[in-house]
């Protein structure tokens, strides 16, 4: 089922569902784009407060999670590739590893949130930072919780999809002849990874020197 079979020059291999998913992914760029835009203008209004507040995030856990999720987008890409090549068993285990890494990410994030709450960094509670820049620092942590929260929700949806794919490949519903669902799940997961690629430097690395 090729949408653009008549367009010369490139391999015309976009399936209809692939095109549909990419339109959805472009809309996700808009969704997270809005959050990144909100971050940009609040940071422009409070540059120093953002620098100070960012130093209160847990850079070790944030970096560890970057490592975990970057690796999971490799394993999911390899899982889709294995299925395309007919290696169902390899695909199954690579999906299992991806799912495990996703759960690990969420566990680390929850542990990190626990620490943030413990250090009174929740902006709508008894906020720990009291200096003259406290208003801007609250704004930073507001953006931090909203952006990482939106990311965590997307990641949780991805975990559900991965579990579904894992079961499907396990019982032989998805094979070399029927790879589409696994391929689309891999695309979605890569976008969840991409969001963390951008969240990581703007939340954890603003001012470390």
């Amino acid at each position, binding site marked *: 089922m*090729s*949408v*653009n079979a008549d*367009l010369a*020059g*490139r*391999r*015309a*291999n*976009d399936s209809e569902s*692939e*095109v549909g998913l*990419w*339109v959805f*992914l*472009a*809309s996700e*760029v*808009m969704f997270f*784009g809005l959050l*990144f*835009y909100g971050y*940009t*203008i609040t940071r*422009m209004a409070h540059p120093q407060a953002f620098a100070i507040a960012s130093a209160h995030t847990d*850079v070790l856990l944030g*970096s560890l999670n*970057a*490592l975990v999720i*970057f*690796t999971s*987008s*490799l394993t*999911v*890409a*390899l899982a889709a*590739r294995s299925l395309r*090549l007919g290696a169902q068993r390899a695909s199954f285990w690579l999906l299992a590893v991806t799912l495990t890494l996703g759960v690990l990410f969420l566990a680390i994030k929850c542990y990190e949130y626990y620490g943030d709450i413990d250090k009174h960094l929740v902006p709508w509670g008894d906020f720990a930072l009291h200096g003259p820049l406290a208003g801007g620092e609250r704004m930073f942590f507001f953006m931090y919780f909203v952006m990482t929260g939106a990311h965590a929700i997307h990641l949780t949806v991805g975990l559900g999809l991965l579990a579904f794919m894992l079961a499907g490949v396990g019982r032989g519903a998805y094979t070399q002849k029927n790879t589409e669902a696994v391929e689309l799940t*891999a*695309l979605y997961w*890569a*976008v969840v*990874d*991409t969001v963390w*690629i*951008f969240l*990581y*430097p*703007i939340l954890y*690395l*603003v*001012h*470390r*020197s």
Partner: protein
Amino acid sequence: MTSGALRLIGVWLAVIVLLGVSVGTSYIPMGQFNSVVSVTIAFIQAFLVWTFFMRLRWSGVLVRLIAAVGLIWFLLLLGLSLTDYLTRHTVGS
């Protein structure tokens, strides 16, 4: 292990090395330039992920177009909105 799988592993390695560079340079005092470096690295990492893990390198015209339009529209909206915020102090004051 086929060359295709090795290529994906190579891309992953590049993304991880860039992560290390990003963390490392953030501890070198460069002022505003710190954020320029770390966000530029993020764009390179995202480019690698979208090109190889999301297979844009092997996609047809339509999918590439949609991916590009998503990014271009975001940059347009960001850029045009910033023309407001960046000029508030200069206009009418």
